[in-house]
């Protein structure tokens, strides 16, 4: 590849601007995870960092377990729109048994990676306007005991260091005196090193930021104080905490490291945090996940294996399974239909029988009625006959009688003569 020299102004030096303009119109995503005990000042610090009152109710101490609460906000400064998501660990450190405290946190972080991976593996995907929910920075709040890290801190940080950029900070730093603070910081850093916890390294590869990052790194972990209340200092209002013995100014670098944290987190390394999340932590997750699912880059003979083929093989396998399931379902369906059919046939038969029965009874009744009718008719006939016979007799009798009387009369008459 040769290096060519240009004989005039071409104009592609506007390329970074073109790139940045595109990103500006789309807006940026930044997701912060705050891990720390209840009441350690996570919400207050977020309010202070972003100069806003994010609505939140202070959590109680009787949560049964750790749960994560995520809230999204849209912030705008000049022409930059930022979609900020703040994830809080509610109930961290409150339980009596804290063995599983780290689990919900790890699960949440993995779930965001998983969602991105799913999108990336889709056939029809839209990555360029994907709302990125992966955690870019994890602020780990260390309690200001002045001694050393708690074992919960070490365990949790160890579980998180390969998944997220950890920035440890000492919370409520106004409870530690200056000389104790220095000892505390070195103790923490040496404990992290001896336990092999990988915290986020501020990048020193680019000249413009190398210097500031190097100087700032020395002050890790940042000892911060958060406050949204303003106190009058001199003739200005400043964010501060007022005590009977004095005022702790948040933005005074002699009082605490808040300014350093803001500088490092937002004004210098925000883009690097996003990039590290994508190119290191996400790639690691993806690699592990795909290997888990059975994909390999090289087969046993170490010939390069295309993911395509395993993909297709898996796909066929999956389709085969789907087909099997479909067949099973179909069979079940057919069986059910048969059963229902049989049931219905039974019912039909019953109904038919009932109908036949009814019909028969009806016939019988009808016959009975007709029989009775016949009987009645017969009786009637008989009666009529009898009546007729009786009438005849009567008339005969009458005739006979009248004949007799006539005879008698005649006889009488005859005797008279």
């Amino acid at each position, binding site marked *: *590849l040769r290096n060519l*020299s240009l004989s005039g102004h071409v*104009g*592609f*030096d506007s*390329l970074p601007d073109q790139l940045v303009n595109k990103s500006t119109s789309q807006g940026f995503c930044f997701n912060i995870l705050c891990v720390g005990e209840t009441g350690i000042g996570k919400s207050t610090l977020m309010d202070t960092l972003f100069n806003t009152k994010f609505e939140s109710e202070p959590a109680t101490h009787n949560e049964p377990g750790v749960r994560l609460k995520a809230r999204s906000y849209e912030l705008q400064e000049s022409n930059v729109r930022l979609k900020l998501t703040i*994830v809080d660990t509610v109930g961290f450190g409150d339980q009596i048994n804290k063995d599983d405290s780290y689990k919900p946190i790890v699960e949440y972080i993995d779930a965001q990676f998983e969602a991105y991976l799913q999108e990336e593996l889709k*056939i029809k995907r839209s990555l360029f306007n994907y709302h990125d929910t992966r955690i870019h920075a994890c602020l780990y709040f260390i309690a200001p005991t002045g001694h050393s890290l708690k074992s919960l801190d070490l365990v949790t940080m160890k579980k998180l260091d390969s998944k997220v950029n950890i920035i440890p900070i000492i919370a409520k730093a106004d409870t530690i005196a200056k000389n104790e603070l220095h000892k505390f910081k070195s103790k923490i850093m040496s404990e992290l090193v001896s336990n092999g916890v990988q915290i986020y390294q501020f990048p020193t590869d680019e000249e413009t930021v190398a210097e500031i990052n190097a100087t700032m790194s020395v002050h890790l972990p940042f000892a911060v104080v958060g406050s949204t209340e303003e106190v009058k200092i001199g003739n200005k209002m400043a964010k501060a905490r007022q005590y009977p013995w004095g005022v702790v100014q948040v933005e005074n670098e002699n009082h605490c490291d808040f300014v350093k944290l803001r500088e490092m987190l937002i004004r210098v390394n925000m883009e690097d945090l996003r990039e590290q999340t994508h190119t290191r932590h996400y790639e690691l997750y993806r690699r592990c996940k795909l290997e888990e699912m059975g994909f390999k880059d090289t087969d046993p003979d170490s010939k390069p294996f295309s993911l395509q083929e395993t993909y297709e093989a898996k796909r066929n396998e999956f389709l085969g399974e789907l087909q099997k399931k479909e067949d099973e379902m179909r069979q079940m369906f057919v069986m059910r239909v048969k059963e229902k059919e049989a049931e219905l046939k039974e019912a039909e038969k019953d109904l038919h029988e009932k109908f036949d029965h009814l019909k028969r009874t009806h016939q019988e009744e009808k016959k009975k009625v007709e029989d009775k009718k016949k009987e009645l008719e017969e009786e009637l006939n008989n009666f009529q006959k009898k009546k007729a016979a009786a009438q005849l007799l009567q008339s005969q009798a009458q005739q006979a009688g009248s004949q007799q009387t006539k005879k008698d009369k005649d006889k009488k008459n005859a005797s008279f003569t």
Partner: protein
Amino acid sequence: MSELVPEPRQKPVVPMKPTGINTNLLGYIGIDTIIEQMRKKTMKTGFDFNIMVVGQSGLGKSTLVNTLFKSQVSRKSSGWNREEKIPKTVEIKAIGHVIEEGGVKMKLTVIDTPGFGDQINNENCWEPIEKYINEQYEKFLKEEVNIARKKRIPDTRVHCCLYFISPTGHSLRPLDLEFMKHLSKVVNIIPVIAKADTMTLEEKTEFKQRVRKELEVNGIEFYPQKEFDEDLEDKTENDKIRESMPFAVVGSDKEYQVNGKRVLGRKTPWGIIEVENLTHCEFALLRDFVIRTHLQDLKEVTHNIHYETYRAKRLNDNGGLPPMTVETEENHESNL
């Protein structure tokens, strides 16, 4: 179409819909510094840009590319010598250079297609070109699909294809239409009218109108494609550009003295044609369009749309590999 990956075991905690907090910002946070941070990072990594030039020989492709990038990126073919044979098929020649300007490093690759349209029978001469473009998509896809991927996948995909139209003054040739019909679906095509100094202003306007009409009638969408306009602002800006395309250009790498200034131009008995003079030709428009305003957009359309289309089609085809894949793929396919 069913997803190929089984569902995750649990639903991720989805953040609430963002609530807009805008007016409560008291004091400066520093969010807008991200622009500067991003700019620094991109300048450090540098950019890749791959431009392909297609057109019959003698239309001034190499000269134009050299004029665009103000350096000898493309070696002009000195015409076919009697001893050299005209290539039987279209060749694809990709030459890469690194150029730097204003702290911005760019790896520029110019892909030349000698032999296009030069045979007597030019049937299917776009096929090698389509094959090459798809091969680059395939290369990128292979890298993207690896388990352990590179931090930055080398981008050899063709971001822009300049198609050179012969300045006949009549209309497009059937070869032009066929080529653009086939390729406008896989790559960003920017048609240019070559050697525009052979037309007068009226001839130019008429020719351009006819060409645009013909492209529209044949359903050929050149870059910037109407369907990818993101918002009203984009649309109005791109409409203006589309109305003045194809740009009628003249290329030159020789400088002459005109009115006390040294300008790039072509010297003829009847005057000096200034390449960068907008009244003479539209080279400056093309340069501004391709390099100064839409360079990033060309790359993005290639990545977000053309590449994604290729990828979706590829993953959908149930193991059906297109005929142009590399040999080892075919061997593995048979092993499966």
